[in-house]
């Protein structure tokens, strides 16, 4: 029998319920308000009183209103059809809602139960299977969508029967399994999984050993992120966080992309679903939307559902990872998620940690980041979830709890800098402070040696060093004046500007420059490093500046031209002429 209760206290979306039976932490309940039922989640239990966070506005709720507990946690429904979808943080389908305004208590099914899918069996009667093993597959867009033994199944099963190839709806019983007790268990094409629990069902989780290309030079060349890796982008408002994230979403070398708009502007989500259906995935030539799922809990939607939205998005990624696919999760922004935690902790009158955030913030963030990763499935194939989150630090100050906690959890750090943004040096990623720990991994170094060129990581360090030396030189020039420093300082400074303008800066709105494949990144870095290795001779600093300005212009024009195309080669020739006129 279900546990029930009555409301005894309300502060905003935190409701206290007196219960008549057992309740579990994170258990879902429905509060009856007139003729609607509001979904809520248990976040604390004290004696007979459960504190629940309501995923909706609590306007009009009364003490004494009835509550019914569901005996389950917040679950996501997983099955074919999730790609191309636009959902809220609780995985309600926003596209099938009728009204212009969101209606309280309206919960829609994320999957279409009438659509027919082309099913092909994989498993055969007599096979021994466990949770997450593949039973069959359907084509979702161009991706093979595996129908798996539900993640929640415990123990070993024997396949009794699998449906023959054919067109079925997701409700079709596609397999019958027999458990260790000899009971028959039917399996259809969809399953449910509690979003706050990590999906296991794989053999091992090795260290990442490949990089995930994004086509963004400041990431791929200088601080590459691994397939199955984690990274985060902190930055003050107006520094280009969203533009950078959208660039990664458009170009990232992944088969499935889940974008979680978590407490951000609704118009940014509108941009995604207005533009993505028009855009083509550079890796497959298919429409971007076909591989994209949008989880959208914008800043004006209920706070508790915002907290849930990142877990929902991660669960979808883990689901596709179990099919042996490469998934990329982008969450914008994890600070809003942390703020949602803060609001609840505050209402529960918990003792606060730094900046009034809950004390376990750091643990919650690292647990979440730990769900990303590359895995080896039971059948030996691999899948990956790469996770990149943005952080919106209060006042642009990186010494705040969310940034600091995330820094401990994520392996790549892409610090957006106000100063660079003011100078329109986009993407405004600070080249000195940012890092990728993956560059230190022997596996990744070996991978880069093999796929890019031997000794590549040394070249990357050299490029970073040129920037560092340039910064020092610039400081000296600022203090002592243009004429107060030796010529070599100007040359050092302008060499760093060369790396900055040609490698670091990239035009996200230019059709060619926005996407720079690794081969091209290698060519440009080699070219720039060769130039930087030369020694030049100048009469005065004006001559030095003009010389490098001309060179930067030529190299930038190359960035805007088709790789090895006609005008590209023309600029190469002009560059060589320029280099011959000076430089040894």
């Amino acid at each position, binding site marked *: 029998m279900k546990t029930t209760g009555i409301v005894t206290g309300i502060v905003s979306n935190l409701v206290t319920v007196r219960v008549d039976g057992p309740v579990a932490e994170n258990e879902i309940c429905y509060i009856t308000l007139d003729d609607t039922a509001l979904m809520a989640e248990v976040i604390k239990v004290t004696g007979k009183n459960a504190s629940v966070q309501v995923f909706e506005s609590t*306007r*009009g709720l009364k003490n004494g209103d009835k509550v019914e507990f569901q005996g389950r946690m917040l679950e996501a429904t997983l099955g074919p059809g999730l790609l191309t979808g636009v959902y809220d943080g609780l995985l309600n389908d926003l596209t099938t809602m009728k009204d*212009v305004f969101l209606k309280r208590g309206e919960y829609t099914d994320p999957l279409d139960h009438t659509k027919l899918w082309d099913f092909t069996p994989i498993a055969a009667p007599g096979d021994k299977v466990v949770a997450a093993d593949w039973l069959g597959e359907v084509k979702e867009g161009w991706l093979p969508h595996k129908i798996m033994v539900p993640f929640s199944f415990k123990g070993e099963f024997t396949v009794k029967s699998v449906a023959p190839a054919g067109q079925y709806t997701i409700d079709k019983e596609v397999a019958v399994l027999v458990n260790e007790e000899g009971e028959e268990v039917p399996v259809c094409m969809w399953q449910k999984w509690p979003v706050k629990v990590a999906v296991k069902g794989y053999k091992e989780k090795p260290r990442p050993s490949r990089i995930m290309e994004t086509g963004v030079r400041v990431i791929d060349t200088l601080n590459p992120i691994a397939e199955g890796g984690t990274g985060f982008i902190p930055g003050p408002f*107006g520094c280009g966080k969203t533009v950078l994230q959208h660039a990664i979403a458009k170009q990232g070398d992944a088969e499935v992309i889940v974008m979680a708009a978590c*407490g951000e502007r609704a*118009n940014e989500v*509108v941009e995604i679903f207005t533009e993505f259906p028009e855009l083509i995935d550079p890796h497959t030539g298919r429409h971007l939307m076909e591989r994209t799922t949008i989880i959208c809990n914008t800043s*004006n*939607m209920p706070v508790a559902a915002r907290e849930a939205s990142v877990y929902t998005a991660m669960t979808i990624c883990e689901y596709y990872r179990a099919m042996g696919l490469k998934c990329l999760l982008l969450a914008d922004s994890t600070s809003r998620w942390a703020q949602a935690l803060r609001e609840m902790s505050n209402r529960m009158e918990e003792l606060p940690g730094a900046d009034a955030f809950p004390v376990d913030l750091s643990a919650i963030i690292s647990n979440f980041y730990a769900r990303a990763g590359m895995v080896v499935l039971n059948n030996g194939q691999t899948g990956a979830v790469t996770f990149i989150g943005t952080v919106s630090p*209060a006042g642009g100050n990186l010494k705040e709890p969310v940034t600091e906690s995330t820094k401990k959890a994520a392996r790549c750090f892409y610090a957006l800098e106000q100063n660079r943004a003011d100078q329109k040096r986009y993407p405004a990623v600070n080249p000195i402070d940012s890092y990728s720990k993956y560059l230190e991994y022997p596996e990744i170094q070996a991978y880069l040696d093999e796929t890019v060129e031997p000794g590549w990581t040394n070249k990357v360090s050299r490029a970073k060093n040129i920037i560092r030396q340039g910064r020092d030189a610039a400081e000296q020039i600022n203090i002592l004046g243009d004429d107060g420093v030796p010529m070599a300082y100007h040359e050092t400074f302008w060499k760093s500007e060369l790396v900055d303008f040609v490698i670091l800066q990239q035009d996200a709105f230019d059709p060619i420059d926005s996407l720079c494949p690794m081969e091209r990144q290698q060519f440009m870095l080699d070219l720039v490093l060769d130039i930087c290795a030369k020694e030049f001779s100048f009469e005065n600093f004006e001559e030095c500046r003009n010389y490098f300005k001309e060179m930067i212009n030529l190299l930038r024009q190359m960035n805007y031209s088709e790789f090895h195309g006609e005008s590209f080669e023309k600029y190469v020739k002009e560059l060589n002429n320029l280099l011959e006129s000076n430089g040894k």
Partner: protein
Amino acid sequence: MANKVYQRVYTQLEAITKATVALRATGVSNDELATVHGRLAQVVKTKGDTVTLQVFSGTEGIPTNAEVAFLGAPPTLKVSDQLSGRFFDAYGHPIDGGPEVEGEERQIGGPSVNPYKRRQPSQLIPTGIAGIDLNNTIVSGQKIPFFADPDQPYNAVMADVALRADVDKIILGGMGLSNDDYLAFRHAFEGAGALEKIISFVNTTEEPPVERLLIPDMALTAAEYFAVDKNEKVLVLLTDMTLYADALSIVSNRMDQIPSKDSMPGSLYSDLAKIYEKAVQLPSGGSITIIAVTTLNDGDITHAIPDNTGYITEGQLFLRADADSGKVIIDPFRSLSRLKQLVQGKQTRDDHSQVMNAGVRLYADAQNAKTKLENGFDLSDYDHRCLAYAKEYATRLLSIDVNIKIDEMLDTAWELFAKYFSKAETGIKQTFIDKYWKG
């Protein structure tokens, strides 16, 4: 308001703070309105039988035996075309001597628009001010605040912008307006002969601060009526959102909540987002555009109020006094309109974004020259030209007293480029140089 028959009346207060009272009562619903000693109040917390009410006009003089009557419903506004041309207080009662408005009674602070039902904003809103139209173009459905120190003429600029904008309705939400500013708005609206398309909800400094909390929801409920029901283009002006946030912190403080940064409530981001996200382009053609004011303390944008605002809004317009030109200008570096690329070059001339970028870049070069000058270094010929350009650029384009068409702004910029720079120094694409260069 609810029928008298259903009213429950209590006369025993358990606790009184400056902004809230608490009492034992049953059957009370969350967000419900009540009257306490004749003053309007709202339920903000229930715990067992104890109900906490936020008293909008303050609790001065309220005795422990005050009469408390629950009204059974959250705050509402009656909406109809009769709202047009009227002035109201924070409760939606007329303050212009006219009759009460008749119409459909709607709860304020209603639900959000389904993000999937939104459309991408695409209609330019011209203001005549080049610092906005040229450099930070505003689009219908956008939300953007002025960031300004208290000594800047932000209310006057906002009134100008509102009256020049091509919209069907202008709704003013005034929070903590000084009586002088309120009268200035009224005078400006009446003087422009545009009164019939203006609706005002005003809380002045003479009125209690907590009342301000109702103003944005009142203004936006009226806005949604005209934008959703009537498919109109609505412009909402909210001034001053800093005072609104201050009122939030007063209430949360009285309810013993733990403050976060700058003694603001931890929910400040969500509270502000709920207001600003009402800005929307609807599929039916109606739209709500929000222009707000956030006053700063000595230009400090890292304070929790402007900081949270910046993360929510689609850019900001930064007002500052410019010493060179002696004018108040819209700072081109610290201002930003995130939606400008949706209309620039599409609804304006093709050279718009290149001219804008070149103009600002050269202005930045002038700032570098200025720094050199201050540090005692010699200036090059280019530096001198930049400085002269900057002064004229600030006077003729950045100043808030400019009122010209966008094509004229572009022509002015080209004229300045030719006057002070060579073609190559502007860095503009060759095709536009060929087409528009004035030499």
